[in-house]
C-alpha cells in the first residue's frame, strides 16, 4: 500500500542569505501493507507529523521516494497530488478541520462535490455515511453545535465518503476524552475489518498505539523500531 524509501527532509529556516537548515527526517524507509493498521509513535518534535505530511503531499521531500498503490506520489505535481488525495486517501486530523460555515451534512458531502457527483447520488451517499457514524439527527448542525467526539465522527465520515483504500490520521484522539477515544478506536478497528481500509495513525498515546498491527517508533528523525512487518 505505502512504500517509503530512503526519505529525508529538512526545513529551511530564516531569511535568505542567512538561512539555516533543520534536518527533521533522515533515511526513513518502511512499508505498510494493504489492510494493515500501522501506528507511528515517538516523542514530540521527533518528526512524526512531518513524515505524515510528506506522505499526504502537503510538503515535498528533500530526498527519497514515496509510493502509494504503486504510484510514485513524490513525483506528482501539486494538482495531480490533489486529485490523487481525493481519489485514494482519507484524512483525520487532531483538530477535525471541518469547515465552520458548513453543516455536518455539507462537510461530509464536500469530497463528493469535488469529485463531481450528481446531487441525488451525493445525498444518498452522505445520508448513508451519516447513519454509519450515528449522526443522522445532527445532519443540519454546524461544527460549533457538535461535541468534540461528534465533530471527529463527522471528519471520519468525510474521510470515508469516497471509499478511499487508505486513511491517514495525525493524533486523531488528541482532542478527545478517554471515553470517546475508546469509541473511536473501536470504530477504526471495525472499518479496518469490514472494509479492509489501511490506516496509518500517528499518536503518542500508548492505548492508541496498541490498536496497530504494528508500531513504528521514530526518534530524532530516524526509525528505531518497527520498519518491517514481523
Amino acid at each position, binding site marked *: 500500500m505505502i512504500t517509503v524509501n530512503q526519505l529525508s527532509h529538512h526545513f529551511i529556516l530564516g531569511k535568505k542569505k542567512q538561512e539555516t537548515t533543520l534536518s527533521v527526517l533522515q533515511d526513513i524507509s518502511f512499508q505498510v501493507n494493504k489492510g494493515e493498521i500501522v501506528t507511528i509513535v515517538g516523542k514530540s518534535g521527533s518528526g512524526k507529523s512531518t513524515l505524515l*505530511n510528506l506522505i*499526504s503531499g*502537503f*510538503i515535498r521531500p528533500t530526498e527519497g521516494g514515496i509510493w502509494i498503490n504503486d504510484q510514485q506520489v513524490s513525483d506528482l505535481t*501539486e*494538482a495531480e497530488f*490533489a*486529485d*490523487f*488525495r*481525493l*481519489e485514494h*486517501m482519507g*484524512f483525520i*486530523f487532531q*483538530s477535525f*478541520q*471541518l*469547515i465552520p*460555515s458548513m453543516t455536518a451534512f455539507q462537510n461530509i458531502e*464536500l*469530497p463528493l*462535490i*469535488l*469529485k*463531481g457527483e450528481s446531487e441525488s447520488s451525493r445525498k444518498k451517499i452522505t445520508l448513508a455515511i451519516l447513519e454509519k457514524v450515528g449522526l443522522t439527527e445532527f445532519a443540519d448542525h454546524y461544527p460549533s453545535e457538535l461535541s468534540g467526539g461528534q465533530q471527529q465522527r463527522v471528519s471520519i465520515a*468525510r*474521510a470515508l465518503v469516497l471509499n478511499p483504500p487508505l486513511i491517514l490520521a495525525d493524533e486523531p484522539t488528541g482532542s478527545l476524552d478517554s471515553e470517546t477515544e475508546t469509541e473511536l478506536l473501536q470504530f477504526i478497528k471495525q472499518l479496518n475489518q469490514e472494509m479492509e481500509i489501511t490506516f496509518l495513525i500517528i499518536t503518542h498515546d500508548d492505548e492508541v498505539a496498541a490498536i496497530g498491527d504494528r508500531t513504528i517508533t521514530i526518534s530524532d528523525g530516524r526509525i528505531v523500531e518497527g520498519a518491517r512487518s514481523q
Partner: protein
Amino acid sequence: MKIKDQFRFVLQNIKKNKVRTGMTILATAMGCAFLIVLASVGYGLQESIVKDTLEQQIVTEIDIYGHIEEDDNYRSLTMEDIDYLESIDNVNAVTRRNQLRQFPTFSLDDYQSETTAVAAHFPSEVDAGLELDEGRLPEKPNEVVVGYHFLDYFVQDVEDEDIYDEASGEIKDEYLYQADLIGQTLNMTVKKDLDVDGEEQTTPLTVVGILKKPTKEWVQDQNVYISGEVFAGVEAYTGTPGGELGVDGDELDSATVNAFDEVKVYATNLEAVQTIVDELDDSNYASYSVVSEMKQINMLFTIMKAGLILVGTIAILIASIGIYNTMTMAVTERAPDIGIMKAIGANPKTIKQIFLLESSYIGIVGALIGTIVAYLVSFLVNLGLPLIIEFAFQEELPEQLQFSMIPVSLVLISVGICLLVTILSGLRPAKRATQIDVLKAMRREI
C-alpha cells in the same frame, strides 16, 4: 467539480458578505454606466449629424464633374461617357442636362419671365425620381415642362408700378399669372448677340406639365425644360456653344457641342454608392457623393468615440481596484476553508475557478446594472438636456438632435471591457488562493 456546484459555492460566499460584495457591484455598475453614457454622447451626436446630412440630400446621388485627363485637366462628359456610366453595376439612372448659356425670355400674353432653359433627358430623369405635379412629360420637340416655382416669377409686364409687396419682398399675387398654364403656348425669345437692340428669335413652345416641388426646402426650380432639338436650334442660331453670347462661333466644335453640363449618377441603393464611387475613381472620373462625405464624418466620430470609450474605461479601471480588494479580502478570509478543501483533495484549478467565477459574477451583475442605469440616464439626458438648454439660452434646438444614443454595439463593447477588466483584476487573488499553504491554513496561520 461541476460548474453548477462552483456557482452555488460562489452564491453562498457572496451571501456571507452581502454588503461588501454589493458595494463592489455598485462601483462596477457605476463605472460601466459612466463608460456607456459617456460614449453614448459620441454615438448620439454622430447619429444626429449623419441623419441630418442624409435627410437634406439625395443619398444615392453621385455628381460627376468630369473626366480627369492625363494632363490633369477636366474634360466634359459626352454620350460615350454616359454609356459607360450606365453600364456600371447598380447604376439606376444617369441624368444629363445642358443649360442655355443665356437667359431666354418666356412670354405669354403680357406675362413674361427671364429664366434658365435646361435641356434634360427625361427617361433618365424619371428613373432618377423626377415627378410631375401636373400634366405630362414632353413628347414632341416643341413641348416643355416648367419647374414648380416658374409661376412664382411669371409676372405681368407693367411699367412704373411697384409689383413687389413691401412686407414680404415677394411679387404681389395680382401681378402673377393665375390661369392654368398647361396647354398654353410660351414664346421663347433668344438673342443672337450682345447687342441690346440686336436680332432676336422667337420659338413657340407648348407647356405640357409642371414638375413637383423640389425635396430640398431651399431649392427654387423656375427652369423651363426644353428639348434637345430646341436647344440645338438656339446653338445653331447663335453659332456658339450653349447659345452663349459674345464668344467666337469657331469654338463650336464637336467636343463641346456634344458634351453635357451636368451629369449625375443615381445608384440603386445606398450600399451600392461606395462601390460605384470606387469604380469611378478607378476610371478617372471626378465625382462627389454624400456617402464619401459621410465616410469622413464617420471617421471623425469613430476617433471621438474611441477616445470617449478610453476615458470611460478609466472609471472601470478604478472600479476594478475595488474588485481586486474585495477578492483579496475574500481569499484571506476563506484561507482556512481553502486549506481544508485542498487537504482533502480539491484541485488548485477548481479553487481558482471558484474565485474567478466570483469576480466574474461581480463583473456581470455590475455590467448588467450599469447598462440598465446607462439606458435610464441616456433617456433622461435626451429628455431633459434640450429643455434645460432651451430654458437657459433661450434657443430652439434642432428637433431630431439626440445627445445620447446607446446602440447594442456600444453595450457589447462596454460589457466586454467591464468583464475583461473584472476578470483580470480577479486573476491575482484567485491565483493567490491556489497558492495557499495547506498546513499553514489548517494551523490558522494565514
